[in-house]
C-alpha cells in the first residue's frame, strides 16, 4: 500500500477572527497528483498557504502530517527544506531582489547551476525577466510562469500550485503544461513513477495537459466531495457549483 506524503486531519484554520477551514481532512498518497476545485472563497488558497506554513493562517484545530511528521512547529523555510513548495496565486512583489538571485540560491547545489538556470528560463520563456525584481511589473501570466519556474527549480517532493492556468494564453498553457509534466515525471524512462502534487484550478485547462489521479471539491472550508477529476470537472462545467454544492449539502444531512 502507498504511504501518504500528506495527511491533513480535522484541520480548522482562522484568518484574523474568521474561521475559514472547517474540520478539513485530506490525504495525498506518495506519487499521486490531485486537483482541488471549489467556488471562490471556499478556502482553497487558505489550505495551501496553511500547509506551507505562512503566518496569518492560525491553525486552531487538527494536524498536518508531511512525510509522516507533524509539521506544526516548522516555519516556512523548514517546510520548504523538507520537500514542499508552492506556486502562489498572488505572490508578493519583492523589490530589489531579482528572479535570477532567487534562482541562483535555489540552484546553488546543482551541477552547472548557470546552465541549468538558462535552460529552465528558456523553457519557461522567462529569459527576459531574470534581471527584474521578483514579480515587479509582471503581467498576470508572467507571474504564473515566474512562480512555476522557481517551483520547478526547487524540485520539490510535493508541489502545490494555486491556479497555474488562470489568466494565461493557450501558448503559455502548453509551455506550463510541459514544465509541470517534467516536474512530476522527472524520469522519462519511468513516467508512472511520479512526484506528488496538489493543483488548484477553476477552468481545468491544465488538467488536459496532465494526468490527475483524484479530484476534490472544497465547500465552506472543508472537502465536500472527492472522486474522479474528469467527472467532477465535467459535472461542474455543465451544471455549475450550485448543483455540486446542493449535492454535497443534501448528502451531509
Amino acid at each position: 500500500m502507498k504511504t501518504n506524503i500528506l495527511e491533513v486531519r480535522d484541520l480548522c484554520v482562522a484568518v484574523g477572527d474568521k474561521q475559514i477551514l472547517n474540520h478539513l481532512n485530506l490525504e495525498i498518497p506518495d506519487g499521486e497528483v490531485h486537483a482541488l476545485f471549489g467556488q471562490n472563497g471556499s478556502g482553497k488558497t487558505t489550505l495551501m498557504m496553511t500547509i506551507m506554513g505562512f503566518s496569518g493562517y492560525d491553525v486552531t484545530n487538527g494536524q498536518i502530517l508531511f512525510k509522516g511528521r507533524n509539521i506544526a512547529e516548522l516555519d516556512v523555510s523548514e517546510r520548504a527544506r523538507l520537500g514542499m513548495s508552492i506556486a502562489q496565486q498572488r505572490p508578493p512583489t519583492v523589490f530589489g531582489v531579482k528572479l535570477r538571485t532567487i534562482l541562483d540560491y535555489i540552484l546553488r547545489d546543482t551541477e552547472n547551476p548557470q546552465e541549468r538556470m538558462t535552460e529552465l528560463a528558456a523553457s519557461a520563456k522567462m529569459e527576459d525577466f531574470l534581471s527584474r525584481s521578483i514579480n515587479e511589473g509582471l503581467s498576470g501570466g508572467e507571474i504564473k510562469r515566474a512562480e512555476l519556474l522557481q517551483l520547478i527549480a526547487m524540485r520539490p517532493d510535493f508541489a502545490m500550485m494555486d491556479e497555474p492556468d488562470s489568466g494565461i494564453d493557450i501558448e503559455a498553457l502548453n509551455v506550463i503544461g510541459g514544465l509541470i509534466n517534467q516536474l512530476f515525471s522527472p524520469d522519462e524512462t519511468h513516467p508512472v513513477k511520479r512526484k506528488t502534487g496538489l493543483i488548484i484550478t477553476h477552468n481545468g485547462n491544465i488538467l488536459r495537459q496532465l494526468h490527475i489521479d483524484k479530484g476534490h471539491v472544497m465547500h465552506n472550508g472543508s472537502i465536500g466531495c472527492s472522486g474522479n477529476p474528469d467527472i467532477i470537472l465535467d459535472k461542474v462545467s455543465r451544471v455549475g457549483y450550485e448543483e455540486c454544492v446542493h449535492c454535497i449539502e443534501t448528502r451531509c444531512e
Partner: protein
Amino acid sequence: MNKPSIVKQLDEKDMRSLAGVGVMPGKDNYAATLVVRDQETAYVRSDHRDVELLPIAEAFKRYDWLKTEYSFKAVPAGYDEITRQCAAMERPIGYFIRVYKGAHVTLPCQTALYMATGGMDQAVHNIVILEEESELELITGCVSERRVATGRHLSVDEYYVGKNAGLTSTMVHSWGKQMQVFPRGGVIVEENGRYESNYISLSAAQLVKSDPQTYLNGKGASAQHLTVILGTPGSEIHTDGNVFLNAEDTNAELLHRGVCIGGKMYQGGLIIAKAPGRGHVDCAGMLLETKGDGFIQSVPGLQSHHPDARLSHEASIGKIVPEQLEYLMSRGMEEMEAVSMLIRGFLGADVIGLGDELDAQIAEIVEIAGHGEE
C-alpha cells in the same frame, strides 16, 4: 612625464584596512593609485599615460593655473570652519587627478584617505579635472584602521567635469565608532558632462556631515547621486547637498537608501532649478531598529526658479515586509539569509558592485538587528 616622485610602502595592516573599502594598491588593474595615510602621501603609482595623478602639493608646484583657475573655485575656501582649516594647510595633502582631453580611461583610478593614527585631524584637499570628452571611473576609500576609534576627517573635494566628459565616482566610507567626518564637495559639470556619484557608508562614524554642492552649468549636463548608508547605534549621519540646474536640459537624480539599526539618520538633498531642467529626489529608509533609540528622517527638497523645470520627489520609510520575507523563506532560505537578501536588494547592492565588503557589513547588521528582536 607623469611619473610621481613618491612611492612608499604600506604595511600589511594598512593593506587590510584599505581592502575593507575596496582599495587595493599594487594590483595591476588600476590606471593609477594614491593613498594618503594620516597627514602624508604614503603611496603613489600611475600607470596610464592619459591620467595624471599627483600629490596635491606637487601639482600646485607644477601648475600655476591650478591655484588660479581651480583651487577653491568649486568649494569656497571660506565656506565654513572645515574648508577654512583645509585651506589653511601649510603643506596641503590630498590628490590631484587630471584626465587628458578625449581620453577614455577604462581602468579605474583608486585613491584612499586613510587614518592609521587616532585622536588627530586629517585634513585633505583633492582636485579632479576631467578635460573635454574624457572619461574616468574613480574609486575612493575613506577608512580608519580597525583600532583607531577617535579623530576627525575633514576634506575638500573639487571635481571638474568638462564638456562631454563623464566621471563616475564611487566613495566608500568605513570609520571608527567615535570618528567625526566632514566632507565638503563641489562639482562643476559643463555642457553634456555626466557626473555619477555613489556614496556608500559601510561602518558609521559618530558624526558624518556631508553636504556636496553640484553645479550643472552646461546645457545637457547630468548628475546622479546614490547614497547608501548603514546606520548603527551611536551614529549620527547627515547626507544633504544641493544640486543646481543652471542650464537647460540638465538632469539630476538623487537616490538615498538607508538601513538603520540604531542611531540618527538624516536623508536630505535639495535640487535647485534655475533653468528648465529635470530633477528627482527619492529617499527610502528601512528601519530595523526595535529599541526606539534610532530613527530615519527623510527630507527630499525641491526649489524651482523656473516655470519649465520639472521636479519631483518621493520618500518612504518602512521595515522588512513580512510577506516578502516569508516568500523568500518558502524558497528554502533561512530567516537571516532572507533578511540579508532583502537588505541587499533594497540597497541595490548588485548595482554598486561591492561584493564582499558590503556583504560582510550587511551580515553584521542582520546579526545585530536579529538580536534586537528578542
